[in-house]
């Protein structure tokens, strides 16, 4: 019997009681799983904390669910809507496109454009063969005929490619010519490479067409008996302005297209103008056919748009300036955005459900190891009930979703200062491409992943999960420690997500007296940032519970909030760097990258901003002299001594992992106070890259005074206030010693004060100091 494995995801991440939620499950080796709705309370199994805590909740869906193995389409491509089978051309044909192959030497066949059935060997296609040569082929079912270009394609170079076929004479040709300029490719003019090839052969037969084969760009149709139709031979690289003609184009016509002219209208069947459809606010998944039949193509697994095209010449850095230079649509054979599984079960949640973090606990087989899955989702209140809102940074969960750093990133061990501790789940995720990648990974051709979604099992958004490269909880499981603390202290709290904040803006949080962030709210959209700023400015009281927050500018489409886009560029601690000219989000037209580089450093919002990271030790804070002022000293009620946070589940201290610092130069409000700061960080803590203009020796923890976490407090308009912890490990320090620790006391004082209506404590101690001491 196969090893029992079960995985699932939901269609929505944030729901209200009484609403329905669709659950998608795939299971190996079993046909039934036992489901139970559970409320998650604590997710860190560290022996110094309360351990894993969940509470079973009655639900109509409890009990056995029939489950089965589900298949996932991996690889991005464009599918042409061609119900009339216009592209099943019987007569002469020409295929042409500009291509920028990402991995021609992948050793597997990659389809560029064609109407080809891999299983039945029928149709025609232009693609890259296993040797990395451009190839055109036609099939009759029992036989396939090929013509290939003379030399292999060179990776990361723009080519004009074409194939023609004349059934009357049987003559087939393939053509490739470089359209490299000084900017658009890997190699310059100094490399003595002759890219050209034109080859002709005489085919023995004309292709046969199947009625239902779709015309695909960047893949070909395939079939498997258990799975049905799917797409294989997917492509890695960019394609720009492909077209199909119903006649054989001549050399002069190819030269004209290669020179930038529109393809001749005579005989044009389709011409996908990848530069059409750009707006100031980005572009969608539909590639418009400018030909006579309007055979628009739709992207699957979100091909990356807003990428430079063959004619990009370095002057314009955004599609908003010159859409005609941004025809590049980028494909990856390991891209996976949405599992698109068949629905397993629609669950109507109980009306009486308390706001919180929930999961469908699915147990299959003996229910241990990979036989147990918790499909996590968040339940927000129907009407805001609590005074406190805990805002789960789901955008950041997306960014880290199913990351493979321990396995794929050579730099991760020097970065985290330890060998990784990989679990069964990590290995499963690594072995299986169907779980997709995170924005910390690269696609097979080395380009960074810019899209991530939650319509797939996110195995690191689970309680008990520990990030393998660091050996601690991270993201979701760490954020549960804050929830467990709220639960332990008995506060009336509600749970919200980044998605709610992005979709509803200020309305999502306006009614709460106090909002707590997660431990690492690193990825923020403009709307989320605006809403947070407006909340604080409008008198809200905000506790920034983490480190390295409000860092990357990300974007979501209004109709698909489950997919996030980010481009990493120029500076910042980043897993990859976007190519020149590709720094703008296809989703919104905004420049991506760090908020700091866009004029909104986090200091401007919460008083602190990212300064350093390190991953093998944490440190406590020590009270700063300014914390004795009566505007802030109330926070320290019940705390003995100067040291704060000497315990914690993340390396035994409250200041650790990623640290934020006060900085007037980046817009920390001038009246902000540093309440406490950490220090004595090891040399694994290195200054963040965006702070470095020139690197010089000594930019590490034990030698640079800037490397520290600052607890910063300031008051905001309308009795608003902000308290920033400036460290990711702060949240994981809360549950230490049965929640009886001074970090817990400090946060309790803050939340108590923040939820009390009226003036803040210490608000009247504002006169000039005329002291004798």
């Amino acid at each position, binding site marked *: 019997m196969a090893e029992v494995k079960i995985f699932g995801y939901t269609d929505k991440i944030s729901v209200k009681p009484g609403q329905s939620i669709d659950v998608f499950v795939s299971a190996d080796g079993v046909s039934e799983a036992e489901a139970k709705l559970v409320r998650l309370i604590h997710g860190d*199994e*560290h*022996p110094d904390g309360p351990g894993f805590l969940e509470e079973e909740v009655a639900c109509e869906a409890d009990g056995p669910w029939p489950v089965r193995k589900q298949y996932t389409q991996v690889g991005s491509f464009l599918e042409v809507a061609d119900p009339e089978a216009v592209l099943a051309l019987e007569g002469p044909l020409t295929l042409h496109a500009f291509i920028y192959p990402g991995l021609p030497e992948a050793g597997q066949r990659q389809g560029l454009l064609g109407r080809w059935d891999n299983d039945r060997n029928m149709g025609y296609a232009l693609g890259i063969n296993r040797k990395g040569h451009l190839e055109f082929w036609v099939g009759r079912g029992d036989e*396939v005929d*090929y*013509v290939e*270009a*003379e*030399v292999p394609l060179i990776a990361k170079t723009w080519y004009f490619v074409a194939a023609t076929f004349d059934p009357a004479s049987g003559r087939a*040709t393939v053509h490739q*010519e470089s359209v490299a300029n000084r900017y658009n490719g890997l190699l310059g003019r100094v*490399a*003595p*490479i*002759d890219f*050209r*090839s*034109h*080859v*002709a*052969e005489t085919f*023995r037969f004309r292709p046969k067409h199947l009625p239902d084969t779709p015309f695909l760009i960047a893949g070909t149709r395939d079939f498997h008996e258990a799975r049905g139709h799917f797409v294989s031979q997917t492509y890695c690289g960019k394609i720009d302005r492909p077209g199909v003609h119903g006649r054989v184009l001549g050399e002069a016509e190819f030269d004209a297209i290669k020179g930038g002219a529109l393809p001749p209208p005579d005989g044009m069947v389709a011409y996908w103008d990848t530069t059409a459809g750009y707006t100031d606010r980005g572009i969608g998944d539909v590639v418009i056919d400018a030909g006579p039949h309007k055979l628009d193509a739709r992207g699957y697994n979100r091909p990356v748009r807003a990428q430079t095209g063959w004619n990009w010449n370095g002057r314009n850095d955004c599609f908003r300036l010159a859409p005609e230079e941004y025809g590049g649509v980028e494909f990856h054979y390991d891209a996976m955005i949405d599992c698109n599984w068949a629905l397993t079960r629609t669950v109507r949640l109980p009306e009486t459900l308390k706001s919180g973090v929930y999961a469908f606990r699915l147990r299959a087989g003996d229910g241990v190891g990979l036989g147990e899955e918790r499909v996590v989702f968040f339940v927000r209140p129907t009407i805001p009930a609590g005074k406190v809102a805990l805002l789960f940074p789901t955008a950041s969960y997306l960014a880290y979703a199913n990351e*493979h750093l*321990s*396995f*794929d990133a*050579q*730099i991760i*061990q*020097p970065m985290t*200062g*330890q*060998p*990784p*501790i*990989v*679990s*069964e789940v990590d*290995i499963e995720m*690594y*072995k*299986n*491409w169907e779980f997709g990648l995170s924005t910390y990974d690269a696609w*097979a051709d080395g380009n960074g992943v810019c899209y991530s979604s939650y319509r797939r099992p996110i195995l690191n958004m689970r309680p008990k999960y*520990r990030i*393998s490269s660091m*050996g601690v909880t991270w993201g979701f499981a760490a954020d549960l420690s804050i929830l467990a603390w709220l639960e332990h202290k008995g506060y009336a709290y509600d749970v919200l997500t980044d998605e709610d904040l992005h979709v509803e803006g200020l309305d999502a949080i306006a009614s709460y007296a106090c909002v707590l962030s997660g431990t690492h709210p690193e990825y923020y959209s403009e709307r989320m940032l605006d809403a947070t700023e407006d909340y604080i400015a409008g008198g809200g009281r905000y506790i920034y519970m983490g480190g390295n927050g409000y860092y990357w500018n990300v974007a979501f489409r209004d109709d698909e909030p489950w997919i996030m886009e980010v481009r990493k560029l120029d500076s910042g601690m980043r897993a990859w760097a976007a190519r020149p000219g590709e720094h703008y989000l296809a989703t919104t037209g905004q420049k991506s990258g760090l908020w700091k580089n866009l004029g909104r450093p986090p200091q401007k919002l919460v008083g602190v901003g990212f300064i350093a990271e390190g991953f*093998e*030790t944490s*440190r406590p804070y020590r009270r700063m002299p300014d914390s004795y002022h009566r505007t802030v000293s109330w926070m320290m009620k019940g705390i003995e001594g100067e040291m704060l946070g000497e315990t914690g589940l993340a*390396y*035994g*201290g409250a200041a650790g992992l990623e640290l934020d610092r006060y900085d007037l130069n980046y817009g920390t409000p001038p009246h902000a106070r540093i309440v406490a700061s950490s*220090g*004595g*960080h*090891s*040399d*694994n803590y290195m200054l963040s890259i965006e702070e470095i203009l020139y690197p010089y020796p000594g930019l590490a923890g*034990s030698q640079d005074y800037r490397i520290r976490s600052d607890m910063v407090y300031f008051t905001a308009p309308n009795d608003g206030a902000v308290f920033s912890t400036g460290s990711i490990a702060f949240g994981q320090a809360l549950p230490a010693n049965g929640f009886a620790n001074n970090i817990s006391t400090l946060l309790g004082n803050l939340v108590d004060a923040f939820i009390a209506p009226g003036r803040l404590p210490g608000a009247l101690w504002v006169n000039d100091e005329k002291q004798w001491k």
Partner: protein
Amino acid sequence: MVDVEQRLRPGTATADVPDTPASTWRNPLHPWGAEGAEEEIPSNPHRDPREVWVRTRESKAPLLPVGRLRYYHKWPGHGGRLWQRMRYWPTRRRVLHIRGEYNPKTLRREKTIVDKRPIWWVLGLVALLLAPAVMPADFQNTLMTAGATFGIYAAINLCWMLIIGTAGIYSLASYAVVGAAAFGTAWLSIHMGLPWWTLPLVGSAIGLVFGLIIAIPAIRLDGFYYALLTIGLNELCRVYTLQSKQFGSSTGGLYGADTYIPQSWSQESQSLLAYYACFALMVAALILYRFVDGRRLGRILKMAPEKREAFAEATGVNFRRARIWVFIISSIGLGFIGGFYTAHYRGVSFSIFSFDTVLLGLAMLVIGGIGRAEGAVVGTAIVIFLDKVLIATGPIRLILIGLIMLGVVLFLKGGLFGIKAQFGAWRDKKKSERRSRRAEKGGEMLPEEATETKDKDLIYWRRYDKMQRDYLKSLISPEIIEEHRKSPLGQHSEPLERLLLYFRRAPLADKYAITVVKPFQAYRIVALSGQRGVAPRIVEDKVYPTQDEAYHGVFLRRVQDLLET
């Protein structure tokens, strides 16, 4: 592991580990009260990491000049011109398999003929075609007869090669099929008066029947037992015809069948016609060989070589069926040849069934090389030349054939035509022996390795890595090991930090990591694959009860690996 720990126990420094005088390191985090930060711990005296660079002025391995002169012409690429490629009608096979490529040393476009066999075949066949025109008059008769015999035997051997090489059936009954067809057609021609042109067709039918009969046991028997059976069959045919009056036991064979050679022609014209007819027969056999071996049947069988049949079967390849098909097709071919044989020699003698005929045929196959058409043809040519042309040398020639065969079997893996591949493999073996003798393990690349490295950055990385390791080896001391054991994470002394940074930056393939057996209770050491989608492998059975012990376990393994290089 224990080994390293023992070797490095404080105060027991061995020859591998430099005996370092005591020194101390003061932890900068001690004033901050960082956990585990002792004020002062024993450490190594300072060693300058640049020392190795200053000291190393040349490679330990002799660096010899490399480079191979291009003494022949290579066609440039077609560039912007259209390249019209020809095919063998009606297949999709191109006339020549040409690989277009960029010369890695110059990036010049070049074309390489990957498979030159079509050229050799054309030259060889044209030579055979023209041979009668240039034969010395003295030997004309002998050579023409030998040429005709060669054509017939080459055709037989090609069919036989399909059975032994392509289908992998060890049948020794090929001559029995030919003989049966020959006897059958001779008898029919003599007694029923069949004209010569029907003989090959009737022969084919006999071949088909015979093929079917011999194919049945091939379903169950293989290898030695099948060979035995077919020898038996051969012997049966011989004894049967020898004792059968019908088949001319008294005359030594059946003679008097109709022939395609007009008796009215001159002797010279007759032998010329015979020569070309046999040549045409061989060409036909070549075409048959190509169509069976090079197409679907042959490809199926190449997936199921001997001893890997089970694997092929598991992947859905019905190799048995394919084998039987090849066998039957070849038998029809052999029957055809049998009919032709009769029409050529006007009859047939018992010697066709004799064991020495089988052995001589086998020698032809083995000398040329099993599994290739050129092997069958050239092997036949050699043996026929020795046997028929050097007939004057008497029995010596048979000994010569035996010696050649023995030599081939003893020294060559794939006959004469396997020499190239065998030589290449032998050269590669010698190459790697020489390299491993000259090169320093983990040291600088040799020039010959450098030429084979696509990314020249790696060549420098090897040098840098070597320098790093030479330096870092000198840092390993009991104090350092002890320091790591006490606190695997956190601020470390300068020498330990250097070691750890080096270990952590290693490439991912085979890099150590830890896997959770039970959270906070049991951990094991694994090695990463460095290849996307491939799970890490377990490197040892030992279970570590804490993360810290596992970290230290990884460290000790890395130290061990470092000292071993």
